[in-house]
């Protein structure tokens, strides 16, 4: 039967209609030459087995469903957080298209970025001419206050020298002599997006700091790191700075550029850390990073300029935030105000109200290194028990730190740390040794489908739910939001489980 024009079905319902089910059946029987139902059933059972898990964990070269992206997207995200800054991909043109799409799909926002559109001739002769022409066009057309160049792997493989290319572009008049161009080499075959963030941050800072004399002041710089919740978390960071009355600079502030209002005009640039503040940040007493693996080189650099440095691991919830605030207070000499203490008390209050639903439940967690550390710690504060803790882009230091964290609490006793593993590994882990819940990005939806472990969507990217990035995850207030997200899924799962019999399908919980 054709559609009913008054009750139009799209793909969500249409393909359950008998005509379409018949088509699928016939196509399979007559044309597809697929394995038999028996073979499929056997293999489907086998991939849930312990034997398959062992083979799966023994993989050496093949990567399936990794939870990481490549350096340049991290670099582009970092540069988007500076005033009037245009990200510039030096390399082939598809890369910038991918980075822009990836960020837009998560933030549901425009993501501006240009590229030097290198093709085969550039592969042979190098991309100098692309840089010269590209900088001239980008400067004329998009009138940025700064251009931040990162590289795609093509430029890295052929060995293009950004520094020399940019100098030559200035000489050719592509951009004015004093126009700021930061640049970072961000090979996709080294590290991941968190390293790209670090490289770009260091490059932007050095662009403003080099050759300047540091006049040590009282201020504090804060680095948020690559963060799918960067919009709301930046606002939380600035709120803390304002509430504590400290002289603080958030380096890379994406709160406006990835959250511009719809009011009839498109703002390609909006907000961001001002270039003046970025220059002044050299004088800060200290630079603090909320994500250790997003700021390795940057903090070394800040230290080399005489600043104090400290790192945190994505402080969600109580202890992580406590440590961060106390460090901030100690560095600036400003007390932690009562209003923040009250925020803390509200989070404690909420946890006390809800603990019965989380205590003793097991949680597997995947995502970026600092995210997994911060989330694991918070889960243990809630009385949850971390089980499989997986980080595709985690290194040996991350593994050590995770093990220490788990050892610090009796709730960490079950925790297993999976460094450098992917989500196909996680599939085996959940199939053979399931946790009650899974915390991670939208990629986890395939795990939920295959293993039945309910996914609590927290992480990057979130493609299939809208606007989560508008709400914070960090500190006490973000912790509250994370708590609610976890609880909602727990309650939904219980309702789903009990709605058929009606027993335990309770109105009040």
């Amino acid at each position, binding site marked *: 039967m054709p559609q009913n*024009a008054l009750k139009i079905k799209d793909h969500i319902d249409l393909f359950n209609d008998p005509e*379409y089910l018949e088509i699928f059946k016939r196509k399979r029987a007559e044309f597809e030459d697929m394995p038999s139902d028996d073979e499929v059933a056997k293999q489907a059972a086998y991939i849930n087995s312990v034997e398959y898990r062992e083979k799966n964990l023994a993989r050496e070269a093949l990567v399936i469903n990794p939870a990481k992206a490549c350096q340049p997207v991290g670099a582009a995200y970092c540069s988007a957080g500076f005033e009037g800054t245009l990200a510039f991909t030096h390399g082939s043109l598809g890369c910038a298209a991918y980075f822009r799409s*990836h960020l837009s799909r998560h933030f549901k926002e425009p993501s501006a970025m240009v590229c030097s559109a290198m093709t085969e001739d550039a592969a042979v002769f190098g991309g100098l001419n692309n840089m010269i022409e590209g900088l001239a066009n980008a400067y004329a057309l998009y009138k940025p206050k700064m251009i931040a160049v990162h590289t795609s792997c093509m430029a890295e493989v052929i060995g293009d020298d950004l520094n020399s290319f940019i100098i030559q572009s200035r000489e050719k008049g592509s951009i004015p002599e004093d126009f700021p161009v930061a640049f970072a080499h961000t090979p996709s075959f080294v590290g991941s997006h968190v390293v790209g963030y670090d490289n770009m941050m260091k490059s932007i800072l050095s662009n403003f700091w080099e050759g300047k004399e540091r006049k040590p002041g009282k201020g504090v710089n804060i680095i948020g790191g690559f963060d799918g919740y960067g919009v709301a978390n930046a606002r939380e960071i600035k709120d803390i700075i304002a509430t504590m009355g400290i002289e603080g600079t958030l380096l890379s502030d994406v709160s406006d550029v990835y959250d511009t209002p719809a009011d009839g005009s498109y703002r390609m640039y909006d907000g961001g850390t001002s270039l003046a503040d970025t220059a002044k940040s050299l004088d800060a007493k200290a630079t603090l990073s909320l994500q250790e693996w997003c700021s390795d080189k940057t903090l070394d650099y800040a230290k080399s300029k005489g600043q104090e440095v400290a790192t945190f691991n994505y402080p969600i919830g109580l202890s992580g935030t406590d440590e961060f605030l106390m460090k901030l207070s100690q560095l600036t000499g400003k007390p932690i105000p009562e209003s923040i203490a009250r925020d803390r008390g509200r989070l404690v209050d909420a946890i006390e109200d809800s603990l019965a639903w989380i205590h003793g439940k097991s949680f597997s967690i995947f995502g970026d290194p600092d995210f997994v550390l911060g989330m694991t710690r918070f889960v243990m504060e809630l009385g949850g028990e971390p089980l499989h803790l997986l980080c595709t882009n985690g290194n040996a230091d991350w593994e050590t730190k995770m093990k220490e964290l788990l050892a610090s609490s009796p709730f960490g006793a079950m925790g297993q740390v999976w460094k450098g593993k992917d989500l196909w590994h996680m599939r085996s882990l959940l199939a053979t040794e399931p946790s009650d819940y899974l915390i991670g990005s939208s990629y986890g939806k395939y795990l939920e489908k295959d293993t039945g472990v309910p996914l609590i969507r927290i992480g990057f990217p979130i493609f299939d739910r809208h606007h989560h990035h508008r709400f914070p995850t960090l500190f006490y207030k973000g912790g509250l939001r994370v708590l609610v997200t976890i609880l909602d899924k727990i309650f939904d799962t219980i309702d789903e489980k009990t709605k058929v019999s009606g027993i335990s399908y309770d109105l009040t919980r």
Partner: protein
Amino acid sequence: MDGMNPDVKAERKALIEEVLSAYPEKTAKKRARHLNVYDEGKPDCGVKSNIKSAPGVMTIRGCAYAGSKGVVFGPLKDMVHISHGPVGCGQYSWSQRRNYYTGTTGVDTFVTMQVTSDFQERDIVFGGDKKLEKVIDEIHEMFPLNKGVSIQSECPIGLIGDDIEAVAKKKAKEHGKMVVPVRCEGFRGVSQSLGHHIANDAVRDWMLGKGKSKDFETTPYDVVVIGDYNIGGDAWASRILLEDMGLRVIGLWSGDATLAEIERGNKGKLNLIHCYRSMNYICRHMEEQFNIPWMEYNFFGPTQIARSLRAIAEKFDDKIKAGAERVIAKYQPMAEAVLARYKPRLEGKKAMLYVGGLRPRHVADAYGDLGIDIIGTGYEFAHSDDYQRTAHYIKDATLVYDDVTDYELEKFIDKMRPDLVGSGIKEKYSTQKMGVPFRQLHSWDYSGPYHGYDGFAIFARDMDMAINSPIWALNKAPWKAA
């Protein structure tokens, strides 16, 4: 058709000049050749195409890898496609085209999986062939029911001199399964387009008529549908019509396709091509090599669907001709009911399009059916033959923009103030912030199908919801509204 008011043409020409004035001289000269106001009766759109994008201008184009892995190979469901190189390309394209398929993912089908060799520095320095061999071995261990493997090359592969063809041959022999090397490195060509071509060549050289799929009886009514990627189920909404009229769709390239359907692709009596740009190459090859004729068709909107069904039926006997009439008669009342519901709400609205290699012309009449005028259109990666084909679809004074830059598109939208823009994810949010309704026309904005009669109903519903949402009247604060 009445010619447009000459003032409108002059205005649009002036708009092009205004936009070009922002560029440095050299780039302005380059870009000028890609922008035009269409003169009715001309055999093409008067723009240059398939030329390198200018650096630094925010082109919307993607790369050859996107054209091969993302478009042609990605939907092929019972093979495992390796994104060969660093992690990013596969990650950003993972599950993003909604090429629907039936099967058990991870067991007999693999479309929504991101499989990569995840190159590290040592692979660049020492070469990746050894790693690739191991990757293929491990694929067979993890997914023994796979029908084969394709190697989708990312930029570094061609730059470091890896011999993926040798690896492919060796591993195909060892495992007794197909391994297809594809040289679709992102730096090749100027857009996705060369990636399509390279992918077509790989199908020709490594897959078509080869392999081990069981032979089967052919009939005089066998057709192969080419260039439908089953986005949101498009190919299914098309297949239902072709089967209903009495044809047998023995292969569907490559939406919901199995390797067997590709291998037997040369057994049809007629090749029906929807996306001409991405798969015309293989149709021409089959015409030369196997004498299989091919024809283009258009399943967007009732006017074009009926025309296409009749044109297809013309190639067959009376039974099929009667079948086509029967199908049209069956669906026409629904199409009319859809038009009765939506056309009054959409009549006289104006739309601008900017999409890939087919839709900027193919959807024009579907909009026309709804009473919506196309006032601007353009392609990311079309060639001159696409612009020739476009001339039949568009009206006098339509603004045509090839490989448009974000800057140009924003200015055009801002000055022409269409009631709807149809383009991609990168254009969606900036357009909406300008207060202009938008639908993604690559992914159907997560809706679909849009092909066929069933699809047209959804298309009409979606365009109406975009254009007539109450939100557009509320995007100015009342105390600020003029």
